[in-house]
């Protein structure tokens, strides 16, 4: 047999094999992300069902608050890590068209958690300090990465805070509305407790100071 034909056949076999492996790896990555996002949406759904139950069938507000705060504590919100992971995984995958949908559903779930936390505060009184971190998705923002590292450490130190991260240049409309509400013009930007806005890279001790003032219980 012609050696070139032989080589061509071998190449095709090898390439097909390689692509199957790539597909497998890409799918494993996607499944991993989907699992985390699935937990988020599931917890958010159970919150809605619990609210419905107490509004329609049982008007016991003290039990409702207990349930809500339990669920809220259970809710999986990772700082910016899941979003970063998604971005990295998208870069690293060959078959990556599912990521846009996945990203949108993640941010919408995160927004839901953020907005519902205000409702929780209204119903049951304030029990934690929300911190919103705006970063850039499209531009290469090095300072955002640094700020993310700092915030990840703060999250470990403080008991009573919750950090939400959103890309200010996202195509999701509600994020744009939110960033307009807080007058975010540059990244990185931090909004603490719905009112205190900090522009630019912030040092950990500065943030902790403000958080302690608003009841973040940081060490």
């Amino acid at each position, binding site marked *: 047999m012609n*050696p070139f034909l032989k080589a061509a056949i*071998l190449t095709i076999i090898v*390439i097909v094999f*390689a692509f199957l492996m*790539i597909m497998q790896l890409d799918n494993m990555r996607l499944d991993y992300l989907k699992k985390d996002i699935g937990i988020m949406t599931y917890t958010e759904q159970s919150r809605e069902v619990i609210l419905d139950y107490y509004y329609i069938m049982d008007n016991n507000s003290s039990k409702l608050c207990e349930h809500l705060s339990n669920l809220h504590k259970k809710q999986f919100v990772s700082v910016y890590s899941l979003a970063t992971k998604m971005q990295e995984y998208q870069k*690293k995958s060959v078959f990556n068209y599912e990521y846009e949908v996945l990203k949108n559903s993640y941010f919408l779930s995160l927004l839901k958690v953020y907005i519902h936390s205000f409702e929780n505060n209204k119903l049951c009184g304030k029990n934690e300090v929300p911190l919103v971190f705006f970063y850039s998705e499209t531009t290469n923002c090095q300072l955002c990465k640094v700020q993310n590292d700092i915030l990840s450490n703060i999250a470990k130190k403080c008991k009573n805070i919750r950090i939400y991260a959103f890309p200010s240049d996202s195509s999701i409309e509600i994020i744009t509305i939110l960033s307009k509400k807080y007058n975010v013009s540059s990244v990185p930007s931090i909004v603490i407790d719905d009112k205190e806005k900090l522009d630019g890279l912030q040092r950990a001790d500065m943030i902790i100071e403000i958080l302690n003032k608003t009841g973040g219980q940081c060490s």
Partner: protein
Amino acid sequence: MQTKRYDIETARLEKATALPGFERTTLDIPKKKGLLIIGLLLLASAILIAFVISYKILFIIYTIYTIFIFMVYLVLWLDNSQYYGKSYKKIEKWPSVSIIIPSYNTIHTIFKCLESCKNLDYPGKLEIIVVDDGSTDGSYEKLKDDRSIILLRKQKNEGKAAALNFGIARTNCDIIGCVDSDSYPHKNTLINAIPYFEDGKKVGAVVLFIKTTSPTNLIQATQEIEYWLACGFLFKTIASIECLYLTPGPMSLYNKKMFEELGGFDEKNLTEDMEIALRMQRHKWRIHTCHSAVVETEVPATLTSFCKQRLRWARGGIMNIMKYLDMFFNPKYGTFGLFILPITLGSGFFAAFFMFWMLFNLFKTTIEGATLWFSNFYIMFITTMDININIDLFFIDSTLLIGAISFLIWAYFVYIGFEIANEKPSLKHVLPIFNMVYLYPIFVGLIFLFAYIYELSEKEYTW
């Protein structure tokens, strides 16, 4: 050609006369500037396209190309194993052999070279001719005392090819061994290699296994691996399908009849060893390889001399491509014209192209990484905070999987190279092999590009 005109030592040269029909070739290289410009434009457009389309697609295309070529070599290697084991031990009348050593200011190496040439084991007639190319370092005067060699003197320095032609014209041996003055053949080189000429076909040359002398630094160690891969694995493989395009300068054995038919070395060529091989291919003379015949050669030890050497090779390569352009994609020359030549050119082209791509990416990631680390350190110092390190199993780039396959095949070639060279892989080979993977492609690309630009600007040739 008048032998007598060169007065010194001619008394011992009475028998040697200029051969009838032997002419020195000084073939001019056609100036095909337009073609060079087209090549450069092609490269530029490829780079432009590379920036537009996703790097993943680019990488996959490149890797598929590489895997195919590797597969061809792999198939050839596995298919032609009977060629490599072939022995031509039964020889009745050993042909006469003439070793020609051109020498120009080589006082440091010529004596070691001569010693190993004199030690050559050979049952037939063996003569050693040193052609002094107008040396000025006193090596000629020192060589004069040696009665066992034939010493010829050229008054004017005209380069290696001219010196070789000068020597070839003055011998009437059947086989001519052209040896560089910095190369040392092993004892059994001739006895192993000469039988390959008794093939029954037109054998123009026998290529020997060129090794480097034991390396003293990383540059030489990298070249050592490269020689095992190129002269060992690659030459053996493509010689099995009669497609060898190079008869290495350090030492190759030529058939005198081939010179009589095709003429001598091209004296204006930068890589006359490649030119003669291409000429042999054109006129259907066979080139064999013999890997049991080992020749050690000195290789550049400094980066400057290494670059200089490679630049000369690359320019010579481009020069000869121009000269034998009609052989490209020419079905008349079979596999050689349709596959080996285009692949050889394509590799240089791809190397130059990927050099840009890699350098660009390297630059980008370095800048990004440096900024991040710098800012992190800055933050760390002012707030005494520890840096997060995330280790993630899924952090592998998918395209790397496909790259890993081509790397594995390449690693197998390196293993074959080790086997051919009779060496055992050890820890000291790790860094040179790493160099071959990461730095060598960038280096080759840069050299190819510079050679191209020099050729285009008609920069003067230097040896």
